[in-house]
């Protein structure tokens, strides 16, 4: 099979791309390789540069420096209409004066595809997104979810090498968003087209992506699978941005071979994994709330007082104020066998050593 040769080829190689708007650095020397046939997500808070990166790939923004290499060809200088990539816009940007068929056919006709072939391809993609009965509707006569599928069909019709999606789910309501996530994932694996997806929603990123690039302040923070990013965040920003975490102030005594020894507040020694680049001295230990266990004060390696309980249905969230300094969030599963200490009780805390991680600041 032809596609076998492409597996794990680099689809888009972003090489040292920087983008300046006047004095503002939107992208700061970003380098990342997006693989062929991959669902790749650019994740970050608003204004972090993720949309700018997408727009430099599409060609709507020039790069200030660096290269964007698409299957071996540097496309950084090409106008958008000469790049074999298509975009699904945040507000869809469907042409309001054209019906669904005309919208989807637009790219094909501009490419010079003949009318008969174009019509066949339009029917194919409309079938793919289940919009065949709506072929003659105008965008204004359709719901948000349907418009979103038209936008997908329109971008997929010319068979782009890469599909760029700029927060396409943000205009949909919650229920629909969850359904469309699955559809998008399915569509990606059905078509085999590389998807580059921009979002600020970490849940969206975690559930859909093969790999995620976390971006902040125009800089790439970490690239990896959902699991890698969640379980082994590289720095404070990633740990805080993806899910909930505790950052505990520690004094690091030694770091070697990805392992660190440190002393916890209260003086107990603790060893755990360390992110690349971690150093000795003052540091931060990250541990997810569900990886902290409540024990009796004598048995814990940390000690504190329960200050708050929040009932979350399946879980219970407990805030523990440490004796020395800092607050630790604990998440306990609700079950009848376990007594959760009430507010004001002294408790001890244990940290699962394989889930704790020393971060780079």
């Amino acid at each position, binding site marked *: 099979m032809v596609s076998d040769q492409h597996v794990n080829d680099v689809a888009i190689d972003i090489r040292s791309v920087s983008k300046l708007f006047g004095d503002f650095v939107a992208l700061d020397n970003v380098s990342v390789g997006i693989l062929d046939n991959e669902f790749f997500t650019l994740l970050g808070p608003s204004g972090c540069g993720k949309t700018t990166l997408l727009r430099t790939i*599409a*060609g*709507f923004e020039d790069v200030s420096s660096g290269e964007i290499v698409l299957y071996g060809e540097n496309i950084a200088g090409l*106008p*958008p*209409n000469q790049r074999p*990539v*298509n*975009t699904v*816009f945040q*507000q869809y*940007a*469907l*042409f*309001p*004066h054209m019906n669904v068929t005309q919208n989807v056919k*637009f*790219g094909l006709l*501009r*490419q010079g595809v003949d009318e008969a072939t174009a019509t066949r391809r339009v029917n194919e993609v409309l079938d793919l997104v289940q919009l065949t009965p709506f072929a003659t509707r105008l965008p*204004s006569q359709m719901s948000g979810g349907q418009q979103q599928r038209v936008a997908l069909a*329109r*971008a997929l019709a*010319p068979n782009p090498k890469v599909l760029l999606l700029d927060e396409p789910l943000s205009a949909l309501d919650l229920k629909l968003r969850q359904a469309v996530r699955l559809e998008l994932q399915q569509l990606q694996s059905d078509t085999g087209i590389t998807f580059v997806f921009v979002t600020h929603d970490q849940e969206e990123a975690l559930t859909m992506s093969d790999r995620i690039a976390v971006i902040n302040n125009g800089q790439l923070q970490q690239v990896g699978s959902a699991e890698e990013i969640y379980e082994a965040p590289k720095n404070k920003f990633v740990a805080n941005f993806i899910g909930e975490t505790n950052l505990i102030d520690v004094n690091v005594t030694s770091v070697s071979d990805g392992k660190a020894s440190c002393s916890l507040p209260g003086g107990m020694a603790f060893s755990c994994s360390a992110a690349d680049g971690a150093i000795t001295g003052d540091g931060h230990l990250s541990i997810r709330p569900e990886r902290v266990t409540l024990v009796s004060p004598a048995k814990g390696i940390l000690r504190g007082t329960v200050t708050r309980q929040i009932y979350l249905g399946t879980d219970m969230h407990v805030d523990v104020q440490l004796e020395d300094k800092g607050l630790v969030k604990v998440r306990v599963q609700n079950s009848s066998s376990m007594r959760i200490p009430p507010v004001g009780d002294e408790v001890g805390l244990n940290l699962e050593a394989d889930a704790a991680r020393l971060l780079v600041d």
Partner: protein
Amino acid sequence: MASRKLDLRYFPGFRPLTFLCLFLLYAPLIIVMVYSFNDSISITKWGGLSLRWYHEVFFGPEAPKFQTAAFNSLTIALIAATLATAIATSAATAMIRAGNFKGRSFGFVLINLPIMVPEIVTAVATLIFFSAIGFTTGYLTIVIAHTVFCIPFAYLPIAARMQSIDNTYEQAALDLYATKFAAFKLVLLPLMAPGIFSGFLLAFIISLDDFIITNFVKGAGIETLPTAIFGSVKRGIQPNIMAISTLLLVVSVVFVTLSYLVGRTGEKSK
């Protein structure tokens, strides 16, 4: 909600002042319209309802003169409005879609200044300019002068429309392999069409109604409807003038209303 005391309606004397202004604005027009249906030859005494002055306009002794003038007015307005709309569309595209280029605000002032300049000044200046270059054809000088002063009137609705069109539509077109020209022709232009049509209608009516500039640059031997009316009035006001004025007023109102309605289409659906 704001206090009722701040509501303009509760200001003493506001209501009578409003009615006075409206009366001064519209009473003369209403009198002309009513008396155009007067059966009497007098322009002050009412002699019963009749369409005789409208008949006089189309079939009376002065009919050929007014018909020629009306034909000139309509063709001049058509040509001038078309040219002005084309120029205004190009100008709006440059002003709104070409980014923040140097001299952009100066350009904006330059395009819209003619609305602020007293028309008599423009009229004198245009006349001096045409005679300085020895250009005194009549019909053609009117067309050129009208085209020029119609541009800002066509520009305003076109620019307003264009500003309301998000530029992601053009980006989407470029993304889908359209050339810049194709993106303009296939996407931007159809979306702008209501604004362009609205601008055209406004320019058309401004040209049709113009008197001052036309009177200065027309030269001898050619009349438009406003100058023909003025010529007749100088020899005493006949009731048929009221009929023509009423017709012109109706055409103007229809066009301006149309321009307003067309300019609004598609804005609600967003």
